């Protein structure tokens, strides 16, 4: 489809679809909200602001009328820093479209530039690496000439915005530290994405109520009698300028209000629309600010929220939970994701505690398929997926799955035992940027690990110089039998004696589902007494087959 002219009706449909897209991603945008201070949820605030505009927008009128009504609705509905900036973007666009019944690509591009200027102008101290940057670089990234239709114009806008959004962590260290992109920029990209969808005929109607139904209630107890007001109050108001107080409203210079707020608080956004002044400020003393500004008008609405409570609310949420229908640019993509194969509740938990994202059930008696690996890969959103098969019989299936997988780079680290995989996973440097270097270091770690297994013999045998009777417990490493004894602890102790236990700093003793814990404790005490310099760490692995897994590292 080729659209060379933007009408009021189309613009209304596009913004409405932008709201749909943002709605589908707002939790994901909320989850990015770690900057600059806890100020409510960016996704919710932007959505509610846009929703207020869409509800007020005239559906079938001239382009300038639609844009003006949309802007007015957003002005009244704007919430939070990001919501207020969003409303200023659309106010600027409306200004740029003023008087136009419809617009061609050039006229719309000019209106978008006006949106950029309006947004920057509304913020007292514009910070790069935020929604402002994503919008500006997006608009600047579209070629000034030669874009024939709106579809291509929006496609170019999105591409430039995506690049800008991805770059935000480079501009703001706080984003980089948190491993996220700017939430406001991500929210804006959602809206533009939705607008582009509508242009291309991809319309869906489902949209939720403006107030986020699933939003957890603020825990009032989090701010107790002795709490400290760490973050102040997020304070927003709409002030109707009063002739009785300021004289002719049109002649009143509202910059005095902004100047006052700049001196009285932080994160100030303040602008005027006709006789209404909309302001957002963070302050420890909202009462003083409200008393002061009342000299110029009367309040239409006031909202004051304790940001320390909001902060508590943010901290109790799972920051990295992912909403369905999530757009790729709002996801928190891991640099490395880890898949490991293990069995036994305690062993699985150990891997999870060591930061392994997906543990596939399996081991000696149950080898997972390539399909099992592929499904596990799909549950991880990472640039590189590292796989620890932890058994030589499983390595090939893992490699096969790695070859088939296309959505991320998959590297199989050929761990042949639980011990190799666990120690390597637990000591993995997730900050390492060079995957090849990381793989080499993992291999080195795995090579330094020895894993001794203790299990029950199912038949008589004579092997490696050890006589084994059916029912004996045998201790072995990589298929080489080291000990055999009717007592499992003795088999373990004798095997340990043949390993260089004293030469290792740490020995992890995992006892299996058939091993009584008091017996395991007795073994641990004995080993600790025999090898005082080696730290013996006991864990209930609850693994099948092996009475003990002893990992030397």
């Amino acid at each position, binding site marked *: 489809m080729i659209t060379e002219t933007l009408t009021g009706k189309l613009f209304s449909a596009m913004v409405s679809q932008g709201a749909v897209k943002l709605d589908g991603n707002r939790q994901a945008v909320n989850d990015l909200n770690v900057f600059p201070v806890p100020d409510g949820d960016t996704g919710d605030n932007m959505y509610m602001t846009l929703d207020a505009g869409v509800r007020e927008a005239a559906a079938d009128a001239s382009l300038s009328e639609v844009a003006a009504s949309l802007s007015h609705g957003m002005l009244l509905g704007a919430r939070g820093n990001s919501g207020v900036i969003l409303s200023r973007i659309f106010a600027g666009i409306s200004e740029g479209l003023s008087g136009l019944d419809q617009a061609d690509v050039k006229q719309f591009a000019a209106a978008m530039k006006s949106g950029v200027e309006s947004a920057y102008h509304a913020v007292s101290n514009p910070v790069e690496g935020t929604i402002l940057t994503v919008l500006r670089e997006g608009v600047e990234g579209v070629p000034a000439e030669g874009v024939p239709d709106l579809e291509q114009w929006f496609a170019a806008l999105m591409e430039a915005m995506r690049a800008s959004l991805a770059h935000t962590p480079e501009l703001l260290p706080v984003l980089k530290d948190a491993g996220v992109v700017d939430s406001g920029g991500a929210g804006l990209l959602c809206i533009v994405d939705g607008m582009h969808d509508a242009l291309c005929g991809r319309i869906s109607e489902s949209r939720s109520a403006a107030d986020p139904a699933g939003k957890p209630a603020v825990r009032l107890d989090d701010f*107790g009698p002795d709490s*400290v007001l*760490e973050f102040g109050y997020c304070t927003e108001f709409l002030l109707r300028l009063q002739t009785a107080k300021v004289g002719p409203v049109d002649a009143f210079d509202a910059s005095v209000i902004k100047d006052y707020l700049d001196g009285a608080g932080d994160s100030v956004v303040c602008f005027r629309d006709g006789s209404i002044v909309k302001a957002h400020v963070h302050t420890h003393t909202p009462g003083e600010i409200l008393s002061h500004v009342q000299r110029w008008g009367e309040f239409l609405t006031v909202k004051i929220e304790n940001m320390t409570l909001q902060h508590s609310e943010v901290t109790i949420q799972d920051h990295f939970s992912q909403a369905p229908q999530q757009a790729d640019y709002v996801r928190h993509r891991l640099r490395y994701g880890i898949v490991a194969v293990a069995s036994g509740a305690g062993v699985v938990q150990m891997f999870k*505690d060591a*930061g392994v994202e997906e543990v596939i059930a399996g081991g000696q008696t149950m080898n997972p398929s390539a399909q099992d690996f592929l499904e596990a890969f799909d549950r991880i959103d990472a640039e590189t997926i590292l796989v620890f098969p932890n058994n030589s019989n499983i390595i090939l299936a893992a490699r096969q799955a790695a070859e088939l997988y296309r959505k991320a780079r998959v590297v199989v680290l050929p761990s042949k035992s639980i011990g190799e995989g666990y120690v390597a996973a637990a000591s*993995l440097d997730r900050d390492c940027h060079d995957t090849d270097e990381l793989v080499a270091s993992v291999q080195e770690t795995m090579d330094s690990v020895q894993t001794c297994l203790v299990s029950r013999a199912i038949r008589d045998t004579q092997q490696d110089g050890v006589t084994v009777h059916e029912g004996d417990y045998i201790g072995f490493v990589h298929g080489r039998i080291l000990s055999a004894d009717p007592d499992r602890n003795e088999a373990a102790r004798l095997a340990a004696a043949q390993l260089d236990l004293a030469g290792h700093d740490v020995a992890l003793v995992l006892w299996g589902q058939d091993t009584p814990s008091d017996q395991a404790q007795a073994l641990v005490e004995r080993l600790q007494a025999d090898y005082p310099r080696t*730290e013996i760490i006991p*864990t209930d692995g609850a693994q099948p087959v092996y009475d003990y897994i002893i990992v030397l590292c």
Partner: protein
Amino acid sequence: MLTKFVDTDSDFNLEVAAEYGYKLVSMPYSIDGKTIYPYEDFTTFDPHSFYEMLRGGVVPTTSAISEEKYTAYFEPEFAAGNDILYIHFSRAMSMTFDTMDKAVAALLQKYPGRKFYEVDTKGITIVSYLMARELGDLLNKGMTAEEAVEWGKKEVDHYVQYFFADDLKFMRHSGRVSGLAATMGGLIGLRPVIHMSTEGKMESIGTVKGRTQVMERLVQYVEQTGLDIKKHRFIIGHTDAPALVEQLSQMLHQRFGEDLQIECVTTNPTAGSHCGPNGVGIAFYARNRWK
């Protein structure tokens, strides 16, 4: 008259504080939304119960105290015509001192002529404890508040602290240690060794595998940096790890002689919330802090 304050983050309990005539500023921690002020909400700290709770999965939070609370500590002293000397844990570790500054500024305006002195130990727990004890001795011998402030500035870099944590979970949750490796640690006996920088911040200066090995590393730091350690107090602090303290004491006596006087201190619950159980540290007099 001079009233001396020290805080509970410096591992002082009521008994030791009374020994020097120090008043306590209580630094709180919270569990399940309930804020607890050490030595105000209880008089005796039961470290084993507290750290057992942490072993069971509880991760307490800590918070700064309010301006009103500082005012409540300090105003009665100024009102009675006393000056104040506050020997406190590191300013660089908490925003609480911004609040304190506001309270003190308002009080000094209200009580002109009164004086507020402070000594920043640029540490927390045992190194602050060590400094406050040694300074307490000097004050008892007649050192003035002005001299104490000068002593603090001159001596602070000689008082060092090294410790290790057993479980990285608490350190990560705390977010107060720079340089922690990005590894998860898990159950492979990897422990970060942490010191207090000259700026008064906690920094990880390495990771050691193995319980005995990490304590050997602590002994090495004493060998490498210790200065006149027997002329000063030597402190071992721990978060409910008496067996490790015993082992470390033996290692230290073996290396430096039985005449090394070691004092064992239990880490206060507020700082312990950031370290977790089974941590051990040492504080002693040294040539300088690790650079």
